[in-house]
């Protein structure tokens, strides 16, 4: 089972690829919109790439609750364990 740090690091790579944000900036306490400047369309791209990478489903309704990197990591961990 991947650790929280491993999930964060993989997610950071995705955010880097989609939005050009340096992967080191993608820390658990960072807000996608306010801190990382990832807008809602980029967020859709991040989510689709994350679904593929982590083999989970992240429905559209859920995406708006993923405000911070920590929210997304926690959701992915729950979905993987569920």
């Amino acid at each position, binding site marked *: 089972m991947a650790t929280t740090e491993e999930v964060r690091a993989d997610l950071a790579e995705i955010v880097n690829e989609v939005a050009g944000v340096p992967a080191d900036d993608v820390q658990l306490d960072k807000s996608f919109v306010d801190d990382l400047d990832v*807008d*809602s*369309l980029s967020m*859709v*791209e991040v*989510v*689709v790439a994350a679904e593929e990478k982590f083999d989970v489903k992240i429905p*559209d309704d859920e*995406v708006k609750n993923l405000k911070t990197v920590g929210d997304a990591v926690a959701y992915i961990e729950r979905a993987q364990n569920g």
Partner: protein
Amino acid sequence: MTGLNPSHGSRHATILGIGSYRASRVIPNDDIVDAIDSSDEWIQQRSGIRTRRWATPEETVQSMSVGASRKALEHSGVDASQIDAVIVATVSHMLQTPSAATAIAHELGTDRPVAFDISAACAGFCHGVALASDMIRGGSAHHVLVIGVERLSDLTNPEDRGTAFIFSDGAGAVVVGPSDEPGIGPVVWGSDGEQFDLIRQREDWRDVIRQKNPMMPHLVMQGNAVFRWAAFEMAKIAQQTLDESGIKVEDLDLFVPHQANMRIIDAMARSMKLPAHVKIARDIADQGNASAASIPLALDRMVTEGEAKSGDLALLIAFGAGLSYASQVVKVP
């Protein structure tokens, strides 16, 4: 028992000529931002649109179609009298009946061709090309004029933050005819009716006229869900089209997707891993999203500006309300 005579078609079909008509009013973002409490920067970032083309009152669905068609006929060298079918793809012809196609065909000076409209929203043009190709190969027509035309400014709510900056007006047309070699590859097309309400006219006409102060039933759209479907599901359809055409992505010269949103175009190109030499249509930046007209407008611009050469292989993919989609590889006329 008496047998029926079979139809005799041409072995192959191809696009013989292309033409377009851009609505003449150039509307910059600054002209529309106040009504949606937005900014030029926000619109460009979200859509890649800098200006859009809107029609004058004189630029009607019919007049823009005729303008585009005359250029396509001239480019093809086919006389209007040789056209035996006219297919118009549109959602903004404001008469339930008759179709836009018959009057357009008449104004062009054609000789009583079969003429009808199709409703497949932004996917309509590629549906029309597929029908034309099959009609020619099936023997029910020899030269088919396919028109994509929209006046979406009529159906745009200037106060809707999600759509006010997107839609535009214009027409594009191609003449499809018989050929010795395949010029139009196999179509990959379909629909996803489960998501019929992602992009739609807000309410039906009967509900409109029951209102106290009736307003045009504008188009509404769930942007993020559409983005997800278009950017990822449609990239898979595009790949399937290449596979069924026997074309490798390296062999492609042009990628001409429906000009829905620059962000969708970029995401599709990334997802398809298009090689750097493939030229990507980006007509949306100063035309906006002209729905059924967007692909022929974009392709004609590439032809006119010398970016596309005769014989180039272009991957077309159109997608939109329905949801509906259609895609094929074509040779540039």
